[in-house]
């Protein structure tokens, strides 16, 4: 007998997780952004010095002048989406779920660092400072589409074996599957 995973249940759990995580993350975000900035500066990924102010991330030049900034929360929503999806995915054991969450956090952290590095490169090229340059294909790919797409792709990559889009066989209890006849 086949019974599909309840997509409604998955959707409700994921939406609930997004709401819970968003509320919690608004408090964690400044610390997380500091960690991101420290890693970015440590790896010298961006051509500018990265700094945080008021929960947001800024690119500063050699004189400490803020060149341009990025809303900290805008960079973090993908992380919330990924965590919510991993929390809500049916059919994952606790250990595997925690392992996936760890791997997902590392992956999304790497994506965020790559985004900062790419945006820094664009700012240095004089392209990222104006809003008109935000129409460039690399920026659209990385920020406009990538911000939304990467969390879902990382989730699909991690949970490919669970195949949440497919009906899965449900193991029936032996007694129910083959009832004993008197």
């Amino acid at each position, binding site marked *: 007998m086949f019974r599909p995973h309840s997509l409604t249940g998955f959707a409700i759990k994921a939406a609930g997780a997004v709401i819970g995580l968003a509320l919690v*993350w608004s408090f964690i975000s400044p610390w997380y952004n500091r960690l991101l900035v420290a890693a970015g500066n440590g790896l010298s990924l961006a051509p500018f010095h990265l700094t945080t102010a008021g929960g947001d991330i800024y690119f500063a030049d050699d004189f400490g002048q803020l060149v341009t900034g990025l*809303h900290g929360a805008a960079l973090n*929503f993908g992380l919330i*989406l990924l965590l919510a999806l991993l929390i809500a995915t049916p059919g994952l054991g606790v250990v595997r779920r925690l392992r996936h969450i760890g791997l997902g956090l590392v992956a999304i952290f790497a994506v965020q660092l790559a985004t900062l590095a790419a945006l820094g490169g664009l700012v240095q090229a004089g392209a990222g400072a104006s809003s008109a340059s935000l129409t460039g*294909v690399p920026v659209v790919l990385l920020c*406009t589409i990538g911000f939304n797409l990467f*969390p879902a792709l990382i989730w699909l990559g991690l949970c490919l074996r669970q195949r*949440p889009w497919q009906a899965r066989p449900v193991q029936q209890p032996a007694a129910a599957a083959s009832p004993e006849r008197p």
Partner: protein
Amino acid sequence: MQGSAAGRIGTLVRRHKVALKSGAIFVAAVLLSALVYSQLVATGLFSRDAAFTAQATGFFLNLMGQSVQVSGPTVAAAAFSVEVGTGCTATIPILLFICAVVAYPGRVKHKLVGILFGGVCLYALNLVRTVSLFLIGSHLHSFFETAHLLLWQPLIILAALILWLVWVRRTSRVPAA
């Protein structure tokens, strides 16, 4: 050894041919979308979409008894105003949904129905988002940024993903011709 490795890769490619093909189509569709999007932004098409979204948002807010004025992409009340940016429209979630539907194997007819249904659902949900954000901004202003960036942005992408999963499941049930 090399022959063995090549053989293994060949076997893997043959075994996952459909998935690889879908993945390649998806990547191509996303790249094409980025190209088209970047060209269309320059034409001002998305600004008109943002203005239309603002008009629709204002319409529903006025229906709810909030007396708001709409001017271009700006929705304004006495105490609060907000500008609907091009990123605040349903364009990106709909684009991603279309890319995913196009990439997944299935009949063209089912894909068209899926795109139409998913597009309408995502557009409607985005209106719920803009209306609710205006209400949050008006009555609970300190929560606005959290709701705008941390809450609604993941929720709308989650909705696109769920709609795609629903479409995939329904499409998979239809027997092949």
